[in-house]
């Protein structure tokens, strides 16, 4: 039985079949990897670039970045504060979900884009205080609609910058490159 199968696989058609299976598995794996690098689907196609173009500062909607560990996602009350005064809100199809959520009083379920694993203790405030701009990590929001992740937030990304910014200052390097700075 098995022998017959092998025999069949050895002939050209069989080889093609093997090739197809291999390609399929490979493509699925590649696609899986690819999807992890894509922006997830969001409930609202939030156009960051439009908002940035209006001159709205990052910290207006994500004030936590300057205050503490998490930048935060704005409450829909904050969205609504402006949007209820914008006529387009009432008509736009894209904005319908916002209207819906506000009226039904249910939270909008955003999917986080920029994440670090649980065992990394990240603090926005320290980075903002050190003079890092948002786009250094999160990319240029003037070109993005829903947030994309331009960086893989792995340890290399963090550490490269930490070591670069420490420069020759040994004390600063001790602090910035210490395992205990992020992992505890």
């Amino acid at each position, binding site marked *: 039985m098995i022998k017959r199968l092998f025999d069949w696989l050895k002939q050209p058609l069989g080889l093609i079949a093997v090739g197809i299976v291999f390609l399929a598995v490979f493509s699925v794996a590649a696609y899986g990897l690819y999807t992890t690098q894509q922006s997830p689907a969001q409930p609202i196609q939030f156009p960051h670039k439009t908002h940035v173009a209006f001159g709205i500062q990052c910290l207006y909607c994500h004030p936590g970045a300057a205050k503490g560990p998490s930048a935060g996602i704005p409450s829909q009350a904050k969205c609504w504060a402006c949007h209820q005064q914008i006529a387009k809100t009432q008509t736009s199809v894209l904005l319908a979900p916002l209207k819906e959520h506000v009226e039904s009083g249910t939270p909008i379920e955003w999917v986080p884009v920029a994440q670090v694993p649980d065992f990394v203790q990240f603090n926005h405030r320290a980075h903002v205080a050190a003079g890092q701009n948002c786009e250094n990590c999160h990319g240029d929001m003037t070109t993005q609609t829903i947030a994309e992740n331009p960086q893989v937030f792995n340890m290399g990304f963090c550490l490269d910058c930490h070591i670069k910014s420490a420069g020759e200052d040994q004390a600063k390097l001790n602090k910035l490159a210490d395992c*205990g700075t992020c*992992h505890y």
Partner: protein
Amino acid sequence: MATVTDLKITELKLSEAEGGKWGMVIDQDICTGCQACVAACAMENNVSFVGDVDSGYGRSMHWIRIERFWEGEYPEVKMTPNQPMMCQQCGSATCEPVCPAFATVHSQAEQLNLQVYNRCVGTRYCANNCPYQVRSFNWRDYERPEPLPNQLNPDVTVRTRGVMEKCTFCIQRIHKAQDNAKAEGREVVDGEFTTACAQACPASAITFGRVDDSESLVSQLIKHGHGVKHLEELGTLPNVTYFKGG
């Protein structure tokens, strides 16, 4: 009854604290053994409870435990002063070099023994090599039924099975205090924050602070008291000082 009176630690005159940045002073005379520190530590650091079977088998995860022995025979029987044991944050830690994965390393910035949970592969060599036996290992994924996980402290990583853990001197509080101080453009002030155990201790038997700052409360206590460091003869340069008192 065979008491273990001969197991008292050798009293050694304390020389100048060698190195070290953060230190702790524990006054055993006023420690009442009430376990508030243990509970506070568990709540602050997301320490798992292990249940009756495992805790009876030496697998409890306490990062701090209170040791006590009995001296003498009835009716002259006495309890030795309660001795809270936690990671001594040795200056020359025996646990560090033996980890093949660099999961427990010395922090240059804070002079603490770090346990990097995500790097730990669970050889448990560090725990064997710890003379104080203060490391606890996640033998299982200890269950926290819903909604108990709501209580977890987001500043501290939740550990999974197969990972070693130990007292960190509440490094998350150290970082938070440093972050706050930096944001306000100042240095961290002595007593501004403390570890969870010291904060809870009803007898204030635990004092925590900078040992490299001669003005801090811990430094003052070390200077003026007759403290001992546990198993100091091993050259581990522990950073916890015990006052036996009495």
